[in-house]
């Protein structure tokens, strides 16, 4: 383990913004994609249900 402390870890040798932004953005994109797909599948099923009642 090469981090003296948690704050050193979060500081990333002064590059915190760049590193955490990169990882954070990636995480955000991934989570958003999964969420959007769940929503889309729900919508599609809902529409099918409306059509089924027709």
């Amino acid at each position: 383990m090469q981090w003296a402390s948690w704050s050193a870890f979060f500081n990333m040798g002064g590059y915190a913004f760049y590193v955490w932004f990169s990882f954070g953005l990636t995480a955000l994109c991934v989570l958003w994609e999964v969420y959007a797909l769940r929503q889309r599948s729900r919508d599609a099923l809902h529409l099918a249900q409306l059509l089924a009642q027709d």
Partner: protein
Amino acid sequence: MHMNWFKYSSPQTFYPLAGKMIPWFFWAASLLCAVGLYVSFAIAPTDFQQGEAYRIIFVHVPAAWMSMFIYLVMAGWAAMGLALNARLSAMMAQALAPTGAMFTLLALVTGSLWGKPMWGTWWVWDARLTSELILLFLYLGFMALQSSIDDPRRADRAGALLALVGVVNVPIIYFSVKWWNTLHQGSTINMGVAPKMAATMLLGMLLMALAFWMYSVAVALMRVRCIMLERERSSDWVKALSIKGGK
């Protein structure tokens, strides 16, 4: 054998099958990601030239790899869809595109975030950066074409053809951009100069790339399920499914 393939390539049977596979891929992705992150942050040593900023490669490079890999896979599915007139293949191609575009965008953004501390600028018209940007355009063209054709079968086939044309062009574009860049000798910065990587760094990148790969499969399967539902919304199996609540 091929009987089986045709059986599973019908949406009705593939839909539940994909549903069963998705959690496995997600678990694999999470696990690989956890280990990969541990390696990237806890084990991989600090780079003596770039300091901690280099840790961005653990998302940047896997994302860049995936962006190219997914394009190839997409073109493969597209070719198969065209050749065999298989609906599922075309749907897979369509399902992969947004994820590929997302990774391309991530590669661009994380690359910029890396470039700022390393080069002092967010962007240079370097060959690799430029061709990554063009790859993004190719993805977007594919998606835009598919979404603006209303007839799904036609959209599939038109998209597949475009993907194939793109795949022929990707190497040409890549080499032309490279050549353009070396000729103008504009940027002295070259990504090739990155120092020889330590084995642990490589391991971290590989693990993250594998995690992204598993994630891509899971997400593509989710999306293909959505596409099936939307396309076959008036078929009996989707109606039955929707009344059961989508399980």
